[in-house]
């Protein structure tokens, strides 16, 4: 009897009752849905992060390039500056008398002497400032140049601003 009862009990442990299966499926479902959320957020975060990083470095490197060029502007060869203050086009001669021109193309590409420097530049403004940091259009009063640039992609919109004092003014 004892053996028989033991023999009966083993088959019951081998299978799963419907309730047990439901519990396991529910638990697995909960775990899976949490996992999916984690993985999806992670993937979305990664993709967005990659986009932000890309846009960020477009902006940073373009700004770096612009500030390097602006620092090397030579007095009195800034005769082109005032004419373009407050616009998205900026042209000047550097200390080696090389003409440098920044423009924003119609497809939002920032061009340096016609060469693409950054994509997705939705806004670009150069402002001329005098020594008390007030905006000026007077050629001889220009002391600083400020740059404001917006890099916009599907998911990001970052503004980059800096003010440069050319070394040779």
């Amino acid at each position, binding site marked *: 009897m004892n053996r028989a009862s033991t023999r009966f009990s*083993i*088959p019951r*442990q*081998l299978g799963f009752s419907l309730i047990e299966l439901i519990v396991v499926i529910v638990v*697995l479902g909960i*775990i*899976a849905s949490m*996992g999916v959320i*984690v*993985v999806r957020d*992670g*993937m979305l*975060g*990664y993709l967005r*992060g*990659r986009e932000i*990083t890309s846009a960020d*470095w477009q902006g*940073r490197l373009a700004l*770096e390039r612009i500030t*390097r060029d602006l*620092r*090397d502007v*030579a*007095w*009195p*060869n800034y005769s082109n500056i005032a004419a373009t203050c407050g616009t998205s086009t900026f042209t000047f001669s*550097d*200390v*080696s*008398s090389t003409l440098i021109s920044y423009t924003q193309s119609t497809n939002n590409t920032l061009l340096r002497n016609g060469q693409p420097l950054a994509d997705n530049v939705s806004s670009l403004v150069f402002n001329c400032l*005098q*020594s008390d940091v007030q905006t000026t259009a007077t050629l*001889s*009063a220009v*002391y600083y140049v400020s740059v404001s640039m917006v890099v916009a992609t599907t998911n990001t919109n970052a503004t980059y601003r800096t003010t440069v004092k050319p*070394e*040779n*003014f």
Partner: protein
Amino acid sequence: MQQPELNIQRARGFLLIVAILVLVVIAVAIAALGNMTSADVRSSSQHAQSEQAYFAATSGLEYATRLLKSGTACGALPTAATAVGLASVTLSRTLNNPVATTVGGAGVATTTQTTIPATSTAGYAAHGRIVIDGEQIRYTGITATSFTGATRGYGGTTAATHLAAATVLQNQCSVQATGTSGVATRVMQSAIQNGLWSEFLDDSSTAVPTVAVGTLHTLNAGSGLVTSLPAGNNIVIAIVALRNIGAISTIATGNLRLRNVTTATTLASNLYGIDVGGVGAPTNNLFDQKTFFFVHREIGAAANQTYRIEGQATAAGVNAEVKIMVINGPPVSSSQTTQSNNAGNAPAFATILTHTPAPPYPPGDNIVIAAVQWNNNSGANRAIAATDLQLVRSGGATLASNTFAINIRTNAAANANDNGGMLLVGREANAAANPTYVVQARANGLNLQVEAKLIVISAVGSAYLPGGVSIPLNASPTSLGTLSTGFPALRLGAANIAVAATQYATGNTARSINATNEDLVFGGSPQTWNEFQMDLCANVLTSPRCADFAMGLMGRQTITDASPSFSVQTSPSSTAVNVLNGEAKILGMHLSPVTDRFEVIP
């Protein structure tokens, strides 16, 4: 029996695989995120290092500029790496002071051409500044026989044509600073001129010393103008205002001195005794203020000299206020120490001083400043009529003269001797080469003693307001003139210098100009002023001798936008119309030792 038990253990392993799979997927996602973040951090830190390296390089140039300004030789600039915060900077330098080459080919035919032909460019810097005649030229490159990329009329000078064989001067330290931070390196270059530095002492804003009786005494507040300037030719201009409202006191001949304290040398002194004093309102017999001027060029001065004014009086009561300006090593300059003569008996002029700079002296804009003193030893009252005390180019134009008549009382009468002084500030624009400058005067009689000292400064940026127009002081304040310049904005180490010479004359009513009411105005506010009240007596027949007065102001500007202006503004004690008249000549100089600063992009 055992088979079912094994089945049970297999069933347990099902969840383990699921868990491992989930963990692997999550781990991959985290690793991807971590990798991205660390890449971002790495590039951010490299960007930061690049910025640190840039500013380290910039500070290296500023450090080099400061060392050169304070007398360190170009070759003695330190080349070992210097830590700057988290970054470090390394300097390298070359002194470019070659044997002067000459303009080659057919010369420089226009004032705009950007290639300057030369017989040779050996020893000249790859970029920097040259001086031809009176013009400074910045250039950006050289070939074997030319300077290219020239910016003409640099540093406020005037662009001019130059003949073949004109001398091409260069004396600059070419400095390169390499900033390093982590893996980033940035390189900056600059050309820094030897000379063209300046220093200024203005006592009008500090305590005013009293001239001691019996012993020579420093008349500056403090120890004088302690310069930190390189070795070279130092041009010193000093204005000494004296006032005594007590009994008359005399500063005897040689007892008002411009001294180089470092070498214990008297550079210049008064040729005639100076009487200052009188109690009460100014009258015919009282001369309670005097102004004395020194101009001197110390040739081959060592670095870091100290200048001061010393004085000794016969009686207590004389107070003194001093302004001293030192200009170190202008590219071209000349000077004449004291010469004297009696003024001519009108209509004849007599030459007081004549000076011909050692030839060849280049053409260009020449700044000429003469310090004049007179002494009436004739036994009668004397007068130098308006424009009869002159600074002229021999055979050429008059550069500066007195606007108002100078009435000088006889020293034979009781009380004070009406000896006085005047600064003649002039500029000859587009001067021909090898000039001779003359100070000449005539008076209404014989035996009026006049003495002068003179300096000539060339090849520096300058602007000049000739004055010569009598302006009634009918408002408070009244502008006696504004010098508008086209000078470039000042950058590190550069300075603008303004020297103003003023003269006043009253009508038939006594007038005063109170202390601080004669101002040299630049940068939007008064920067330097008269420390003592100037009293002018009524210009009536019996007492015209104290109705005119000559004064001077100097200032130095170290921060400004381009095109600064300098003006003299004076407020009279009363603005009743047409009583007090004034006049001002203003000279501006632009000294820019640093030619260019730019980044070398590797």
